[in-house]
């Protein structure tokens, strides 16, 4: 059992990481609790901000048969919780030629024939830490409604927990990402400002900057990253960076 430093005043509570009991400060997120217990993340922890989807946790509470889920970086520990990380799931991911691919349901179905193995058990929706209606977007893809599937899957952070629970072995999140790509590039109405920006980038707007970054050492890159201007917490809606540096 790990020993909490004396300087910590938070109450210690027991949690079970992969079945082993640890006492951790009750104020910690699951991710920090795992680190507190002595584990080191070299993968399976990305942004620590609830966005990247790398730190999916599944856990149980005492006396409850249900599986609960959360992102380790966002979920605070509970006494007696039994947890494990599922940072990655070996879900099938199809290769495709985006340029020539038609944005229709049949094309998605051809790449992912397992789509039609869905039995509407709803395990995917129940396990989604982002409360995405996964089963419903899969239903929308099956009937070729890519716009609806895009809309329903928009909050997906690609954690893969849906796939981990699927009895039909569907890689829901990869299917949804493909659908959003098809929608964004081939179905969504074109807008002038996006077209202008794409042209600007294609014409080499960032090329010099990229070339400079490529030449930098790791230390220089770290320094640049740390010193970058960040959007403050609770920033007003119309917040703008002072310079275009780093944009």
């Amino acid at each position, binding site marked *: 059992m790990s020993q909490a430093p004396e300087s910590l005043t938070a109450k210690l509570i027991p949690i079970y990481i992969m079945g082993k009991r640890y006492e951790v400060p009750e104020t910690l997120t699951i991710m920090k609790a795992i680190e507190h217990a002595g584990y080191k993340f070299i993968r399976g922890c990305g942004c620590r901000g609830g966005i990247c989807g790398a730190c999916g946790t599944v856990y149980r509470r005492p006396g409850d048969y249900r599986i609960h889920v959360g992102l380790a970086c966002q979920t605070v520990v509970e006494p007696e919780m039994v947890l494990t990380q599922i940072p990655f799931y070996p879900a099938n991911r199809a290769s495709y030629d985006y340029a020539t691919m038609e944005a229709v349901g049949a094309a998605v179905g051809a790449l992912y024939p397992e789509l039609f193995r869905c039995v509407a058990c709803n395990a995917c929706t129940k396990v989604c830490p982002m409360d995405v209606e996964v089963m419903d977007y899969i*239903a929308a893809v099956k*009937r070729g409604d890519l716009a609806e599937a895009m809309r329903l899957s928009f909050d997906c952070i690609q954690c893969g927990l849906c796939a981990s629970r699927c009895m039909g072995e569907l890689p829901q999140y990869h299917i949804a990402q493909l659908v959003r790509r098809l929608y964004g590039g081939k179905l969504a109405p074109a807008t002038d400002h996006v077209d202008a920006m794409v042209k600007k980038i294609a014409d080499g707007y960032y090329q010099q900057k990229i070339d400079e970054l490529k030449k930098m050492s790791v230390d220089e890159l770290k320094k640049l990253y740390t010193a970058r201007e960040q959007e403050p917490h609770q920033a007003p809606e119309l917040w703008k960076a002072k310079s275009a540096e780093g944009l």
Partner: protein
Amino acid sequence: MKIGYYPGCTLKSRAKNLEDSALASLAALGFEVEELPRWNCCGAVFSLANDDLIHHLAPVRDLIRAKDAGHERLITLCSMCYNTLARANLLMKHDEEKRKTLNLFMEEESDYFGEVEVLHVLDFLRRELGWEKLRAAVKRPLEGLRVAPYYGCTLLRPREVAIESPDLPVMFADFLRALGATPVEFPEATACCSSYQIIANESAALEASAKILRAATASSADALAMSCPVCEYNLGRRQGDVRSKHEGVGELPTFYFTQLLAIALGLPQETLGLKWNEASSLELLKKKSYLTVSA
């Protein structure tokens, strides 16, 4: 009150002509129809294995959606969806043990006891409108059009979900007569088109279709009417393959029953979705001068 409507996946893609013509016709006949706000694939076939409950989740979940949306009745167009939903509904109504297991598994949904009534649109029209009123609503009678009503399997089998007596069905013929068409009797009206066997056993499937098409042609039908996208695929879309492999099969235009309804009600051509039919269907309608283009 608006009537709940379950479309089914195929009606949103390859069988858009079935949905478009039906919704336009129902609206023209004064029925207010509302698509379920949430629905998933019905599963397409009703699982027959006694211990295979997992495949009942999909249709039952759709029935729960209908109930939650406040619908007492749910209408469907695709024969496969009708059959699957109607049978799942009976299971939830009468099999207490399975109902309990399914409701327990779907604990995130409302409990379901088979409260919603599942109706196929052909039966719905007979009950709610009746053939006399339909006849009165017809603006362009399909006079002289000889139509073979093709039921296929799933509107009449098994008996407990049959839209009418499977021994001597008359509903489809009565419907066509109300539209002013001449229904022709043919011995294969309730034969199976081979359904999904077209994927696993193509030659047997084409042979089954050939038998049906040959019988319809022999009864000198001008067209074949149906309500199932799988039948339409086998008998319509694959008709060229049937003809190339089997003798004595003439070219026979195919229609969904709702397309003939929309034509008879005088609805504009764009409600028919004819681009999803084979070319022969459009040619026949042109020959008979049945088409109207809205101004």
